[in-house]
């Protein structure tokens, strides 16, 4: 008997058919309510609305949406006084926490730029190389990441990679 051919792309599209947004948000709110009941001392006022959609928020609030790699790159840029080229940033990141691919750092730089934490300048638009510099809100966010790390008691481990930068 001839075996039916598998169309994996089609199968995946059906398997990952999008779930209704209302359902996902309702589930998130319900679980948050239950976790508040289970851990009343740990979870107080916490909104599920991303800070970018809230009005009147301090820009630093955006920091909670950063990943560990972003935090590291942000702190590297904070430790550099002036505009820096990618090579210098990459070397400093690598010295603190080895990164396998340059793309990891590029991705973090792009995200930080989108958030307004860094600005870039290109001398030649046709070339990908440019200069990166931290903004004022970026410096505030970087300071906040370090304050948070310092809040943790096991300093050697908690500050970890950040300590080598400052």
């Amino acid at each position, binding site marked *: 008997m001839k075996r039916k051919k598998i169309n994996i792309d089609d199968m995946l599209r059906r398997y*990952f058919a999008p779930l209704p947004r209302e359902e996902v948000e309702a589930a998130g709110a319900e679980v948050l309510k239950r976790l508040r009941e289970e851990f009343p001392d740990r979870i107080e006022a916490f909104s599920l609305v991303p800070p970018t959609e809230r009005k009147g928020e301090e820009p630093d609030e955006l920091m909670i949406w950063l990943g560990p790699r972003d935090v590291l790159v942000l702190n590297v840029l904070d430790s550099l006084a002036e505009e820096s080229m990618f090579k210098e940033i990459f070397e400093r990141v690598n010295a603190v926490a080895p990164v396998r691919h340059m793309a990891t750092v590029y991705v973090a730089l792009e995200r930080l730029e989108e958030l307004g934490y860094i600005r870039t300048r290109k001398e030649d638009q046709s070339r990908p190389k440019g200069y990166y510099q931290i903004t004022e809100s970026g410096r505030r966010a970087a300071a906040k990441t370090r304050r948070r790390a310092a809040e943790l008691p096991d300093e050697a*481990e908690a500050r970890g990679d950040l300590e080598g930068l400052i």
Partner: protein
Amino acid sequence: MLGLTTTATTGKLPDWVFREFYGKHYQSVYRAAKRVIRNFHDAQDIVQTVFGRLLEQGRLSPDFLKNPEAYLCQAARNQARDLMRSRGRRKFSTDPLERLAVPAPEVEDPWMFDALTEAMEELGPDAAQAISLRYSEDLSDAEIGKRIGRSRVAVAMMLVRARARLKKQIEKRGRGRS
């Protein structure tokens, strides 16, 4: 990466750790659980378990910090599979009847769904996340790369390999059935 450890007084992670990860990832974690368990209430329970454990944890592992979203989704998928398996094993239940009346999952081809769920187990967390982001959120290679911290080319390669692996697993399962 920034290592996180416990506060001396409570022996638990600081509260902002929860805020950071719940706000960012509850949607992906719920979707990951729902795809395996296919039930709204069970998927909610799984999300609660995963984040409850995060709150009770003393420290975050390097694997978690490498890609928190992928790690949490993997935890949700594992939890969902364990729940399904434990139900498969259970012969008798003392639950009241109304609690047992869980509506059957509405899927057009249960075999295909089971086969894919099983095949997804063979993928690593990053590859599973990349597949999920492509097919459930329709993200491009570059957008997926931003989410998981890889280049566009690396994501493209990862997706090609993951699809081939899934196909192979499903064909293997199909041969076992025929």
